[in-house]
């Protein structure tokens, strides 16, 4: 039971935390690109607790693709979709998705006549699916999108036992024992 409690606590913690990932890249699109920081002196002095990732060579796909300039610096979310709660299967929950954050000005309005939900943002309904988190991150880097990665939720299968229904429990009355 204590193990179960630990599992639930970690699950709730990881659900709350969305870690901002700062990519270290060399995107050679413009001349005003920030120079890559050399941290060799830190390593020598013993301060380098942070693992220095080698700079990767990332193709500037946004220049070639002909995407509009407003699209170059969108912030996107990389996450693993949760299981569909209406179905028991865990299908499609292993893949990673990219979707676009809502605009700051919220280009959304309601149609005054029919009440349709409308949006001025042409990327609001777009989402992309990838096999792994790294694939999604690589794609976002190539497109020049600012991305953040949400931790995958820790999946927990609650122990279910028919005999548990008849076990005497003095303190709490729990109606849903399997939750």
């Amino acid at each position, binding site marked *: 039971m204590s193990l179960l409690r630990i599992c639930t606590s970690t699950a709730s913690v990881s659900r709350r935390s969305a870690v901002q990932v700062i990519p270290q890249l060399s995107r050679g*699109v413009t001349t005003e690109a920030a120079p890559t920081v050399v941290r060799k002196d830190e390593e020598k002095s013993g301060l380098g607790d942070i693992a220095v990732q080698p700079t990767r060579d990332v193709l500037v796909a946004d220049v*070639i693709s002909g995407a509009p300039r407003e699209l170059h610096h969108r912030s996107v979310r990389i996450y693993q979709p949760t299981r569909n709660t209406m179905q028991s299967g865990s299908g499609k929950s292993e893949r990673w998705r990219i979707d676009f954050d809502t605009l*700051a000005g919220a280009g959304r*309005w309601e149609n005054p006549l029919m009440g349709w939900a409308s949006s001025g943002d042409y990327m609001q309904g777009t989402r992309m699916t990838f096999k792994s988190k790294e694939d999604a991150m690589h794609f976002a880097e190539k497109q020049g999108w600012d991305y953040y990665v949400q931790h995958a939720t820790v999946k927990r299968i609650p122990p279910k036992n028919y005999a548990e229904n008849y076990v005497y429990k003095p303190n709490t009355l729990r109606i849903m024992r399997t939750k």
Partner: protein
Amino acid sequence: MTTIPARLASLTRTSGGPAESRKRALKLYRDWYRSAPEICGIYALSVSPAYVRHSIRQRFEKNRNVTDQRAIDVLLLKSRQDYQETMNCWKQIDHVMGILLQTQERPNKTFLERFYEGLGVDDNVFIGKDEKAVIPAASGI
């Protein structure tokens, strides 16, 4: 107008370095520049060759700061293909006037400017919601 399909065709190439890609870009720009009167002629455009040159210059200026060698190669190839399609008369007039020559920057007009013009005024404007004021994809960074 009969054209030879292989006319102005170019192979995919990889530049050896920045000097070579610069040379190729200049060559491409000169080809575009010199063919401006011909473009106006074969498509019977109502614009002057100077305007065509200006638009093409804008296209080149947009990619001036690209330093990625692979991206430059792709851009050069795409522009070469575009040049071939234009000069062989494989395009319609609208392709030339719209995609090739029309300015790509959207004018950032205020609400009142658009209101006076009477363009883009619809029901939402009158109830105080101006959806065109929101530039899509500007996520407030």
